[in-house]
């Protein structure tokens, strides 16, 4: 025979059970971020985003995501980004935690001897941002070129100095 104790027991089971079930469902449905790890610092422009149970990546330079880059994607994806500091999260049935990563700017110049002349070279931007390269001949600036990432140009000079392009 059901008595008051039984009713209280049912109350308890129903409430606690519901709460546990909701917590379990939420934790099951919450998107799972695998990569990149939080606070990643890299000089690679290509970032692999690896996750489960989500279909949208949001990337922004502020944690409020006021003007995010939105990428609809089902599976893992490599995204090319400019050097900078980024916040990102994924959105599925629920939003994920917010993670951060930094792409450090890297200036990298490569010089290859060219067959065209004694002081002729192929100069290559092997870094991850556009470069402003000063060309010098025996210490005097004789020219300046802008090299985009991975761009290669034939130049003539005795010294070459590359720095980040202002624009």
């Amino acid at each position: 025979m059901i008595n008051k104790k039984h009713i209280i027991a049912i109350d308890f089971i129903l409430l606690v059970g519901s709460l546990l079930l909701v917590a379990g469902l939420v934790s099951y449905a919450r998107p799972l971020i695998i990569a990149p790890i939080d606070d990643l610092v890299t000089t690679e422009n290509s970032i692999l985003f690896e996750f489960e149970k989500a279909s949208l990546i949001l990337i922004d330079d502020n944690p409020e995501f006021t003007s995010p880059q939105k990428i609809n994607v089902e599976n893992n994806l490599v995204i090319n980004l400019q050097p900078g500091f980024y916040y990102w999260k994924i959105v599925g049935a629920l939003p994920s935690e917010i993670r951060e990563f930094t792409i450090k700017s890297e200036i990298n110049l490569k010089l290859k001897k060219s067959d065209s002349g004694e002081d002729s070279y192929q100069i290559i931007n092997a870094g991850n941002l556009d470069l402003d390269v000063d060309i010098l001949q025996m210490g005097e600036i004789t020219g300046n070129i802008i090299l985009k990432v991975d761009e290669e140009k034939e130049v003539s000079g005795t010294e070459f100095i590359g720095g980040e392009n202002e624009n």
Partner: protein
Amino acid sequence: MKTKSFIFFFLISIILISNVSALGITPGRTTFEFEPGKQETVHFNVINSEHKDVNLVVLIQGELNQSIAVSEVSFEMSASEEQKELSYTFTIPSDLSPGTHSSEIVVMQLPDKSSIGEAFIGAALGVATQINVLVPFPGKYAESSLNVIGPEADGKITFVMPILNRGKLDLVRVKGTIDIYGALNEKVTNLNTNEISVASRERGEIVSVWDTTEILPGTYRAVATIIYDEDVLTLEKQFNVGERLLDLQNIEVNEFSLGEIAKFEILVENKWGEAIVGAYAQMLVYNQENEVMADFKSATYDFPPLEKALMVAFWDTAGVKKGTYDSSIFLKYGQQSQQQELKLEVKNTEINVIGIGYVISNKSGGGTNNLTVILITAIVLLVLINLAWFFFLRKKVKNRIE
């Protein structure tokens, strides 16, 4: 044989060593807010990208050079050393005028030494890490840029203008208007942004969203006027709505006889809101060995905006046997080339073109949608069970006991 190979690789190595040099530095730039007299120590890395033994010198250039001291002025890196950490100490001068002030630390790799003799060969390669100091302007001063994000899948374009307050005073009211102009410079629409306030040396964003679902594809120009308190800043940017696209809709071959010239009628639509001129079609037909057995082109055509046109290309089928051939069609215009794979079913009196039409995948996530449905259903079910128990069943059972 082994000795010959060794000599060959040794010579190649010598050539490569003397012919390539590479050097890196990170970060490319460090920016400081103006705090007179403040001393900062910054670490940076020099990268020995070619993994060679190198001699390097460190130079300081620019207007702030008297305020910068580097940890090392010359050093060596061995081939096994991937990178080396250096540092500089920067004391921010107190007498800088408003604006941006720059200097750079240049790491120079001295030219390769010849392995024979002592003569220097090659060129010197240098990389620079920049130092910027932002000195605030007296009064109110804002900097901004116009970023155009999209169009998104729902046709919305977001205009984002980050507001950098480079003045000594707070900006109380910052808002903007954006005028959108079409290709003929006609005004298409006018948008307003949100209004924000930005404290001195802080950053804020004003944003406006434009729904382009009813807008013709094409090139547009946005002119943004940012009003911050009593000052105005104007920005401009060109952007595209839609894709500059020729859409291949159909290919037909009529009145064909094997061994004679086949006339391909290629129906193409210009999906772009502006004319596309000088477009042509090129078709490649492959034999069973996947070699190109025919390569033919149409004449050039001009496509008015959003209109269709029939391109014609001719294929001489003399010597061609009945069968199914792989084929590629390219629609070429400007720097663009669109490719589509086809199969040509060649018969005695007809050619059937197989493969026109695209399968466009549904990008909305089915998996996550299902998960959402499950989640919502389960929660609704739980709420219903709880409501049923607490407001109906519980009372009923209690009454029965009493």
